[in-house]
């Protein structure tokens, strides 16, 4: 078994030599039979990719993306969870009207009516981190206004009437804040926000009242997990008023050694204090992770390269891959890439895989509901197509 895996690990080199060869996906002979289907699939795959996955930005070897969310409500209309259908509709058409009127600002943006999408398409949007689970479940009169590069999104009728969101690759909290704040200013020119002098912006959930700001970043911390330091460090993070969650936010599982760090306190601090505080803690985490990587390197460079190579071998040759397993293997390969031991796999590809292998995306590619078994099968097919 071991021997076999090693051989697979070595397979990587063979592929590397093939790099210049246009027949990169040569192994998928079936595709020749379904050339048309293959082209459609390529288009669909491209639709599932957005800017935050491009693997650039500061500290991209640890910080996958930075996100800034600003919650706002319209004065005098009940919050979405208690609003009647007419009131939700009123908010929806008001925003639709504003987006149309502010042509020069929003003309290139697309307005996506979520109730008009299939549940699978909505799930794809969640997996791309563009909308919340709440909007998958309750899409009536909710919408997403999305910038062409999919960096800036305005969610209508989510938990609050409006959620302004910016999502950027790497550690770019300041830029993300500027983006949401400037959109906030545009909207404030024409919308009367629910605001009070003492408590600030009023939100449906009192955990967001005040600034309404949730800043977060998604970090890959494999060395801290492998060296067993992660629990100690994360509990320290919790003590300074920050929350640690899995990749899909509130309540989601920790998987693939990915951790989403976000602020909890929204009142009594300025927006800049909130994200600068988060920035400071993230920088500490980055330093700790770098130190742990150094530690692993000193314990044996080949051990790390072996881990990445084995993971690559399994990803490249397995036929059935469960989600958790795939995430774990991608993390192993990613660590190899981030430490410069694997040089033929771009971070971009690994970021894209984080989303492509999720059940919504897989089912969207195949345009049908897939059983658990079919998903595991399709997941491995997609991984093999994407990895060089």
């Amino acid at each position, binding site marked *: 078994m071991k021997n076999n895996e090693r051989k697979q690990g070595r397979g990587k080199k063979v592929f590397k030599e093939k790099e210049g060869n246009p027949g990169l996906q040569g192994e998928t002979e079936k595709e020749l039979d379904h050339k048309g289907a293959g082209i459609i699939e390529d288009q669909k795959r491209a639709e599932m990719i957005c800017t935050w996955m491009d693997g650039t930005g500061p500290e991209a070897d640890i910080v996958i993306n930075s996100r800034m969310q600003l919650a706002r409500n319209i004065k005098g209309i009940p919050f979405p969870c208690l609003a009647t259908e007419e009131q939700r509709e009123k908010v929806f058409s008001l925003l639709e009207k504003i987006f149309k009127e502010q042509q020069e600002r929003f003309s290139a943006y697309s307005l996506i009516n979520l109730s008009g999408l299939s549940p699978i398409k909505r799930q794809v949007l969640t997996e791309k981190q563009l909308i919340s689970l709440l909007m998958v479940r309750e899409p009536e009169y909710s919408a997403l206004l999305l910038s062409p590069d999919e960096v800036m999104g305005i969610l209508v009728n989510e938990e609050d009437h409006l959620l302004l969101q910016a999502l950027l690759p790497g550690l770019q909290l300041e830029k993300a804040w500027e983006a949401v*704040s400037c959109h906030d200013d545009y909207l404030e020119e024409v919308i009367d926000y629910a605001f009070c002098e003492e408590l600030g912006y009023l*939100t449906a*959930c009192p955990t967001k009242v005040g600034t309404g700001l949730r800043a977060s970043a998604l970090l890959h911390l494999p060395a801290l997990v492998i060296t067993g330091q992660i629990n100690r460090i994360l509990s320290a993070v919790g003590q300074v008023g920050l929350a640690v969650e899995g990749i899909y936010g509130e309540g989601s599982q920790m998987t693939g050694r990915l951790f989403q760090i976000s602020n909890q306190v929204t009142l009594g601090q300025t927006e800049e204090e909130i994200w600068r505080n988060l920035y400071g803690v993230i920088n500490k985490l980055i330093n700790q992770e770098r130190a742990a990587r150094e530690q692993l390197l000193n314990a044996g460079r080949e051990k790390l390269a072996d881990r990445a190579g084995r993971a690559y071998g399994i990803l490249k040759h397995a036929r059935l891959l*469960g989600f958790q397993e795939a995430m774990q293997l991608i993390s192993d390969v990613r660590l190899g890439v981030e430490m410069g031991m694997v040089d033929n796999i771009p971070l971009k590809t690994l970021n894209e895989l984080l989303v492509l292998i999720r059940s919504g995306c897989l089912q969207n590619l195949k345009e049908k509901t897939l059983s658990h078994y079919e998903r595991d099968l399709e997941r491995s097919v997609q991984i093999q197509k994407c990895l060089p």
Partner: protein
Amino acid sequence: MICQKCAKGNANVHLTKIVNGEKTEYFLCEVCARAQGDFELSFDEEFPLHQFFSDILEIIPPGGTEKLPREASEGLQCTSCGLTYAQFMQIGRLGCDSCYRIFSPGLHSLIRRLHGNQKHIGKVPARAGSSLKLKKEVERMRSEMQKKIYEEDFEGAAKLRDEIRQLEDQVFTGGEGLEE
């Protein structure tokens, strides 16, 4: 029963999946059930926020005589959206902006516990910001006018009164204009 997947562990997890009306049943051991990773995006895994609230709410601050947030607003109902305080405690969400005013005794204590703070110092809507400034200016001029009346400087007081009226008109039209 033995786990269907690894055929080794004890199948103490019974997983029933219904996808498009198609029912599949699994009997798995805990390890395989977890490894299956089928729980990604499962809808019932959200953080039970109401429970979080009630946990926070039940903590009596050391040495404090302050009422628990649950008791402080007990029995209140929002006149604007109809949400009761008891409902809020259950769903963890407020119904509208007026809830903040109506539930204020308990809610403010809850907010203080959540954020360790109860005064917003961040961004202010530009327009509301200018009307806030005007309001503060009017307040200042009023007290100055009272002073002038007390000093029997009626001419100065009348001048101030006219200026206040003018400012109040601005606040008023500013506020109303926004509704459109």
